[in-house]
């Protein structure tokens, strides 16, 4: 697949790689367009670049323009002007197809197996769930892709992450990836793509595979990857940009030919057992600082020497005692959404917990669908009303409090239970705010209880033997 996209060898031994799908958004593209203009260049293949707006958009009354924040307004209008100038399709607010870039490209059928996908956003690894080579790039590379539909890239090694068994009831793809990152660390993936395989992966839906690949970057791996299979093809068939009729048959034949050989050799391989994984929550300031919900915050002497300095920093920042339980920790804000967990199945999993219950007093809980399509699909099933009745706010699509570039942010030392992907210091908009990463169902449960709660205790009826999620 790599060779098929190779244009030339670059000085220094990297590959000039053709980019089949280039996704852009308002935050990392304006300087790239300016650079293009400064160099007197144009966009090489505008039809292969697709734009949306997600990072800075408000999630309340978002179609009221200009935005209250003039900087946000300037970013969106700059994107609009650049797209109009160069003939790039823009999925704008209210278009019916706007949303988080990593949610809309798959749901429109733009992301397909065998493609190279690049975007100025590290969570581009998400698209590897379709069997594509997908990776995040910086703004200079966005400029390069605009100018040449290609970029300089080094070939990655591949670590196969084989997962046996099946996830237990109340345990989701988010828990699986948090567990993998906790086990391998945040830098083990540097120089690697993470290829997820095995019976547990085969059993995942496309949306779950996207959650998994989305967070490969949090383990240091620039790409996530899952071999395309029947689940992939079923997801794609009938989507707006998917091939139809004879072309569909040809596409499936080609996609099927891309699957890694059963006996393929990998640069590294690790094994996990899905059945042994519990709902997982981060306690610290890196995504690798995670524990099962029924475990305690690790003590210093249980950690390797190299992990201790950042653990000490995390104890201080999070104000958590080593050895204390994470279950029962009070939270202030509960956020369901993001490119990791803002898809319909994520909202359904959270709704199953919220149904017939109510958010605890003093807790701010809100649900941000990943796209306009996700929002409409959820509303068609009555999830908006269900969430509102349970005391959650139902918002409009965007990245929202995952990185808090819009008005949704933590205040002071608030703690959030968040279905997003990063618990870095200051990530959610307050320089002293604290983030606990967990699955959307776990966030919904935390909102109900007002504290970190094992979602399995709320799923007793749904978790009878023989009934998988």
């Amino acid at each position, binding site marked *: 697949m790599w060779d098929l996209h190779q244009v030339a060898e670059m000085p220094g031994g990297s590959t000039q790689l053709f980019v089949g799908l280039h996704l852009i958004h308002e935050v990392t593209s304006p300087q790239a367009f300016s650079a293009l203009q400064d160099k007197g260049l144009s966009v090489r293949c505008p039809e292969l670049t697709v734009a949306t707006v997600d990072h800075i958009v408000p999630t309340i009354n978002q179609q009221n323009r200009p935005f209250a924040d003039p900087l946000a307004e300037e970013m969106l209008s700059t994107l609009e002007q650049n797209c109009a100038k160069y003939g790039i399709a823009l999925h704008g607010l209210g278009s019916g197809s706007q949303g988080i870039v990593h949610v809309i490209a798959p749901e429109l059928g*733009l992301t397909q197996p065998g493609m190279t996908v690049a975007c100025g956003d590290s969570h581009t690894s998400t698209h590897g769930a379709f069997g594509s080579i997908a990776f995040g790039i910086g703004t200079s590379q966005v400029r390069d892709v605009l100018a040449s539909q290609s970029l300089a890239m*080094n070939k990655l090694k591949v670590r196969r992450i084989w997962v046996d068994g099946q996830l237990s009831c109340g345990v989701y793809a988010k828990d699986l990836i948090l567990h993998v990152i906790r086990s391998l660390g945040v830098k083990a993936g*540097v120089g690697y793509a993470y290829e997820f395989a095995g019976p547990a992966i085969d059993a995942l839906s496309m949306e779950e595979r996207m959650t998994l690949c989305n967070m490969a970057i949090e383990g*240091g791996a620039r790409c996530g990857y899952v071999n395309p299979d029947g689940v992939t093809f079923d997801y794609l068939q009938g989507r707006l940009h998917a*091939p*139809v009729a004879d072309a569909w048959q040809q596409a499936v034949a080609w996609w099927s030919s891309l699957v890694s050989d059963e006996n393929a050799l990998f640069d590294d391989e690790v094994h996990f057992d899905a059945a042994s994984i519990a709902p997982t929550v981060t306690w610290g300031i890196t995504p690798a600082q995670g524990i099962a919900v029924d475990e305690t915050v690790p003590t210093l002497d249980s950690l390797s020497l190299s992990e201790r300095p950042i653990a000490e920093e995390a104890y201080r920042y999070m104000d958590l005692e080593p050895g204390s339980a994470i279950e029962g920790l009070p939270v202030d804000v509960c956020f369901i959404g993001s490119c990791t967990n803002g898809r319909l199945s994520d909202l359904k999993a959270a709704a199953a917990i919220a149904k017939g219950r109510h958010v605890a007093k003093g807790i701010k809980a809100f649900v941000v669908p990943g796209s306009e399509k996700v929002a409409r699909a959820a509303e068609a099933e009555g999830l908006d009303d269900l969430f509102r009745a349970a005391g959650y706010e139902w918002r409009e699509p965007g990245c929202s409090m995952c990185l808090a570039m819009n008005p949704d942010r933590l205040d002071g030392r608030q703690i959030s239970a968040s279905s997003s992907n990063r618990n870095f210091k200051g990530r959610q908009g307050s320089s002293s705010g604290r983030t606990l990463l967990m699955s959307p169902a776990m966030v919904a449960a935390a909102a109900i209880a007002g504290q970190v709660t094992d979602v399995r205790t709320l799923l007793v009826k749904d978790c009878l033997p023989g009934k998988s999620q």
Partner: protein
Amino acid sequence: MTEIAFFPQGVIDQVSGRALMLHGDDIDTDRIIPARFLKCVSFEALGNQVFEDDRLELGGSHPFDLPVYQGASILIVNGNFGCGSSREHAPQALMRWGIRALIGESFAEIFYGNCLALGIPCATGSADQIEALQESVAAEPSLSWSLNIQSQQFQSSIGSWDLQVDSGPREMLLSGRWDATSQLLEHDAALKSAMAALPYLNNFVASVP
């Protein structure tokens, strides 16, 4: 913020200047430049905002605020520096503060590539080497250092360390061909051939253009 007249350009065979050190593994790009400063359509103002929240938290004792490190141009860090978000705003902020080279145990991949695209070399060394370097810099912040890209040596009047600059980036920096755009554009014929051979652009094009 230091006043910087010129950003890197052309052949980069050596970076010289004073060094400053920043301790800690896994320093992510949200810390280097918090997301609120990404609300901009140019990179110009970022130099003043580098490490804003960490600096506020330390009330003046952050290395980027200490008077002895003002004007330094070589940053010495620990492991997995620049992890997280792909934002090029992070190396842009460091560059605009005055950083022209980084030395560390390891760097996150996207960050490393973003630095190279700006002509900023990232050299690596062992944990022991980095610790020794950080101690030397802390003990004598006024020392002048020089990172030689060809020999991969980092030296000052007190000694010399053998570091690594990966061969690909090294060649690009030494030849002055680290800014990829023009080279990519040179291969347009090969690009057309590659496009002509891709099934998804030819054999089964999408149902909607």
